[in-house]
């Protein structure tokens, strides 16, 4: 009788563990989305810049414009490394969940992940220093380290599982704060203005080009339409990412509720499945962003 009861607990735990792992996998590298928005903006800027440069009849100015485009692109390429700390915190959290829910036994290498916990706390501290508004709760990294320090072979081992549950529930405030930060980034007036500036900029650059070049080719027209389409695409990507971020916060809350027994596993799984499809769709959309021929 006792072994039957234990068996059913373990099944639920394993299922929950899988659920947590799947969540972590779908949110893995989330910071790539804003990075891709930024690099697509840089590509569009470069594309239209070449047309503008070609409108200049004075050779020195033409060259100076090309040099400026080159310098600007170098600077833009360095920007992704400096993306907001909030995105990195979420990435690290998902990395941690993946590590903890891995089927592979803990090895000496995984124990090195204790360092990962302190890195996570450092990131949160850095965010709190920079952020002018709300602060993220500290101590998530320490909670992570506690699980690893248990040193058992599988995360399903009793105490370790309890710690994982505490880790996810404890991180819920962190995840919702980070999501709020991401939403404010994606919905910011500055990002909207940057996208809009490219839209009007494409029109302007081509106007200059068509003014000075007497024979525009069909290829130029295609490039114009292509660049306009890409800007339009960026707007819709921004909105879809915002919707995914909102859902991410909701789904994490439900996941934490399922782990704390406030919600049934079945209803959580259904919501998670919808979220996974949304995330997959979003990843596919971002994958379609092509590398411009100007590279």
């Amino acid at each position, binding site marked *: 009788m006792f072994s039957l009861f234990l068996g059913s607990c373990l099944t639920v735990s394993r299922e929950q563990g899988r659920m947590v792992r799947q969540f972590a996998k779908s949110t893995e590298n989330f910071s790539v989305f804003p990075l891709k928005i930024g690099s697509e903006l840089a590509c569009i800027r470069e594309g239209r810049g070449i047309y503008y440069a070609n409108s200049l009849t*004075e050779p020195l*100015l033409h060259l100076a414009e090309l040099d400026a485009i080159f310098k600007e692109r170098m600077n833009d390429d360095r920007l992704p490394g*400096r993306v*907001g*700390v909030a995105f990195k915190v979420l990435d690290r959290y998902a990395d941690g969940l993946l590590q903890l829910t891995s089927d592979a036994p803990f090895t000496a290498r995984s124990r090195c992940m204790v360092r990962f916990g302190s890195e996570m706390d450092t990131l949160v501290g850095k965010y709190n220093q920079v952020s*002018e508004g709300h602060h993220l709760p500290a101590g998530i990294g320490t909670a992570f380290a506690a699980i690893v320090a248990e040193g058992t072979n599988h995360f399903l081992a009793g105490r370790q599982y309890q710690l994982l549950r505490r880790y996810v529930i404890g991180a819920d405030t962190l995840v919702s704060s980070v999501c709020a930060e991401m939403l404010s980034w994606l919905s910011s007036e500055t990002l909207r203005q*940057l996208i809009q500036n490219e839209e009007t*900029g494409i029109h302007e650059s081509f106007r*200059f080009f068509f003014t000075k070049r007497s024979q525009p080719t069909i290829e130029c027209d295609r490039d114009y339409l292509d660049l306009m389409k890409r800007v339009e695409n960026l707007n819709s990507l921004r909105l879809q990412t915002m919707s995914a971020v909102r859902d991410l916060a909701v789904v994490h809350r439900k996941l934490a509720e399922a782990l704390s027994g406030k919600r049934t596993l079945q209803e959580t799984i259904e919501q998670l499945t919808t979220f996974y499809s949304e995330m997959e769709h979003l990843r596919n959309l971002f994958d379609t962003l092509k590398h411009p021929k100007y590279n």
Partner: protein
Amino acid sequence: MQKELTLSEIRLAQEEIATSLSVDGLDRSMVVHLEQTSFHLRNLERLLVAAMEKELIGELKKESLALNAVTEEMARAAVQLSVLTGVLRKVVKMVGQIIDMLEIAG
């Protein structure tokens, strides 16, 4: 808000330059002058865009001095641009009038 205003001022000024450049029979030195002005405006636009990107990733929150410098630069640019746009509009109008006169005389 200041940046958006300045960016739209730049667009307006560039529009005027493009209109001026499209006028047939412009003197070569006038063309070079207009292109130079347009190139300066492009550089100003790049400066603003770079500042906006920095602001977006939160770098400017800690660099209040840099932010102040950029804001001051933008305020100065906005004034210069309004003047420049006014001058350009007058130039375009004048060139148009001269062409009309030449056409009538022709």
